[in-house]
């Protein structure tokens, strides 16, 4: 049996060289390329030594599933097929991962919701599947525009949940995601989210690693549960779950099992910090006013900060990169001096603001907003307006423009 490290320096059937992941991501030359986010997903998967990709490619939110089909045709992926629904896709992903494959899939919006039953099952079965979530609206009336409400539903599934801001994040984090989620002490699925359309359909300059270098393959024998053993949990649990036995021991075992999933998320903290250079990024957190955001709300926040600076208002920024593991200590430390904390979000419920309020002392400092949803854009001016209004400064109404 070849271990991943023993193959480094050798070539796969496409002539790509299996490369030490740290060197691939930090030392290999990078080529600036002008791609859409969906094309960037394809390029990251090309370098991921992915065994199986299962697609439900009708979603208009991202072309990634179809583009990865091209990779299969080119011979970069071991197997590729379509499921008959999102639920089927996620179940088939589980089957492939149970069999010891490195698995990749994508979903968005209503598809995420339809497949939801599978995500806690993936986590409970310790399957390190990577799923790209190109967030879009989930409720009727349907929308293909970005809306991050579906992330709120993923937060308690037991999956790792990361939220990318840019296509560059996406490229790097797809590769880094496998490195974190496949650690034997973690070994959990990863929902790598982005704000659909903004990231998937727009073009950006992304620095790509060489196409002839790729990650070492997944080694299923490092899994914390037996690989494809039909007689043992977790596979056996699919047909003989603890819940079928009504006694204290079976409940206690199930409880211990659930705790272990969340313990694994905690263990991912160390690895995520190593690969992502911290769970958050910060700028000027000594300022009285902070914007704390994830996804493309970070980009809008950054622009709002520039506009505020022109008016003499100093504002800092916290970019939240991982939602699970939740950067509790980091956010507490970064916000300790802030008098006002603004949390702009692309969803109606403000789930990120709720998480932050539950994390920090004096949560009245958190201003949950501005919010947009249903696919609306978030002009930096409305963030500026929200901040100025809270500070008692005069602010114009963007909605009134043109009247």
């Amino acid at each position: 049996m070849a271990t991943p490290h023993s193959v480094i320096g050798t070539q796969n059937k496409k002539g790509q060289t299996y490369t030490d992941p740290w060197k691939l991501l930090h030392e290999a030359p990078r080529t600036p390329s002008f791609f859409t986010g969906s094309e960037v997903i394809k390029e990251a998967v090309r370098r991921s030594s992915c065994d199986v990709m299962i697609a439900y490619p009708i979603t208009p939110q991202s072309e990634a599933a179809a583009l990865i089909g091209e990779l299969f045709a080119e011979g970069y992926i071991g197997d590729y097929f379509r499921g008959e629904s999102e639920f089927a896709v996620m179940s088939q992903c589980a089957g492939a991962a149970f069999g010891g494959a490195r698995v990749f899939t994508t979903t968005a919006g209503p598809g995420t919701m339809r497949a939801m039953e599978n995500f806690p099952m993936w986590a409970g079965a310790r399957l390190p599947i990577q799923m790209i979530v190109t967030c879009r609206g989930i409720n009727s009336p349907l929308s293909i525009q970005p809306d991050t409400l579906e992330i709120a539903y993923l937060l308690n599934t037991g999956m790792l949940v990361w939220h990318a801001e840019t296509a560059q994040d996406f490229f790097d984090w797809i590769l880094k995601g496998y490195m974190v989620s496949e650690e034997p002490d973690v070994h959990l699925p990863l929902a790598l989210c982005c704000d659909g359309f903004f990231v998937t359909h727009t073009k950006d300059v992304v620095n790509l690693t060489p196409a002839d270098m790729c990650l070492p393959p997944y080694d299923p024998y490092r899994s914390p549960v037996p690989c494809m053993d039909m007689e043992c949990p977790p596979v056996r649990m699919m047909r003989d779950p603890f819940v079928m036995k009504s006694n204290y021991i079976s409940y206690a075992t199930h409880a211990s099992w659930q705790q272990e999933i969340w313990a694994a998320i905690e263990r991912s903290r160390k690895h995520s910090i190593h690969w992502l250079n911290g769970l958050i990024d910060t700028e000027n957190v000594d300022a009285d006013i902070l914007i704390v955001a994830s996804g493309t709300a970070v980009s809008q926040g950054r622009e709002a900060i520039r506009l505020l600076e022109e008016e003499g208002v100093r504002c800092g920024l916290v970019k939240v990169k991982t939602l699970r593991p939740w950067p509790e200590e980091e956010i507490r430390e970064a916000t300790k001096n802030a008098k006002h904390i603004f949390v702009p979000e692309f969803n109606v419920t403000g789930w990120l603001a709720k998480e932050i309020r539950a994390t920090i002392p004096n949560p009245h400092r958190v201003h949950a907003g501005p919010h947009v949803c249903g696919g609306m854009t978030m002009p930096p001016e409305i963030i500026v307006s929200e901040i100025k209004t809270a500070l008692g400064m005069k602010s114009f109404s963007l909605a009134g423009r043109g009247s």
Partner: protein
Amino acid sequence: MSEYRVLPGPEHFLPPAAASMGIQLPNPGEAHINGVIASEDKAYEEAARQFLMAKVPTIFPGPLVLWAWNEKAAKKATAIRHLYNTLKDCVQPGQKAMLIPMPDYRPKYPKINPEVEINPNHPNLTIWHNKIDCCMFVGVHCHQANLSLKIIRGGTSCYTIAMCAQAGHEDAMLSFRDASVEKIMKLADTIKRLKGTVQPRLETAKNGASS
């Protein structure tokens, strides 16, 4: 650093996962004792001391070393047998070293035979039945080991050691990581070296692990 310590129980109706209490796994070349990072040398000494103090020191080998699925596993199994024989030779009259396998993880209801095996879904039954007050997991898949270690900590007073081939176990009271034949042999050597220098707690452990 977390103030939580991973100590023998019975800790709680449902004890927390140590990781959720802020306990971190050791880095390569390190171990942990009670959730505090320690040198491997210190861990060998402490593990040997706990084995020699126990009334019923027990090794629980799991499927990864019970089956000769590769050459390394077979060599590890031989080393574990050597560790058990060393332990047997080094304990004093009144102490009873045991080797009880965890052959698989299948849920076995209404209960397993605790005379012959341990099961991750109800490991406490084997601990209680045999009055085991110190045990070492080796060759058990990490998820199943953590499952067991938490249940043992919750309902028994047994001291738990993990000889883990991967990243270690914060739910054990003492854990090695990257277990190898050399590490297992070094533990056996340490037990041999400390033979006769450690006072067994025969009186205090007269009734074995508490229920």
